[in-house]
């Protein structure tokens, strides 16, 4: 991930290279997982909100298209939260 390329440690850690830092590795792993999850979310929002809001594509991205997409993004995030809570509750009960 080029946006995360600021880190200076090396995973190979060979002779002459800087000793890898545990905290750095953990931070990088957490970062990359967060990026992957955000990408998945964006992909799904695009797909589902496009289907819902742009059912017949006009000659421009109209203000009503834009307004629908905004409402849809909020609604999708609310759905994600609700489903996450519902799933975790269910898993904990079993």
């Amino acid at each position, binding site marked *: 991930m080029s946006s995360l390329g600021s880190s200076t440690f090396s995973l*190979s850690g*060979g002779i002459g290279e800087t000793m*890898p830092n545990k905290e750095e590795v953990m931070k990088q792993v957490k970062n990359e997982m967060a990026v992957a999850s955000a990408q998945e979310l964006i992909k799904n929002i695009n*797909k*589902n909100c496009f289907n819902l809001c742009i059912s017949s594509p006009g000659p421009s991205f109209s203000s009503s298209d834009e307004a629908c997409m905004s409402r*849809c993004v909020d609604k999708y995030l*609310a*759905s994600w939260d609700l*489903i996450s809570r*519902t799933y975790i509750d269910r898993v904990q009960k079993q």
Partner: protein
Amino acid sequence: MAGFDENTQKELQEFIQRETTKAELQNTVHEFTGRCWELCIKDAKTNQLNNKESACLQNCVNRFIDSSVHVVKRLQSLQ
């Protein structure tokens, strides 16, 4: 994970395992959200879920899990 001492390697392995579990859980939520959204949400006239939509999403998750459990039970009964 060369370059780490044994304790650190173990700690990192446990960390990776926890993070993997977290990622799997998140992926399941992504999948449920996509599937249940398609079933339950028909418009975005407001930016909030109404009671009917919320109930549908919750039922969708619970029924999907029930169905998966049932499939396993059914397959076991056929053995």
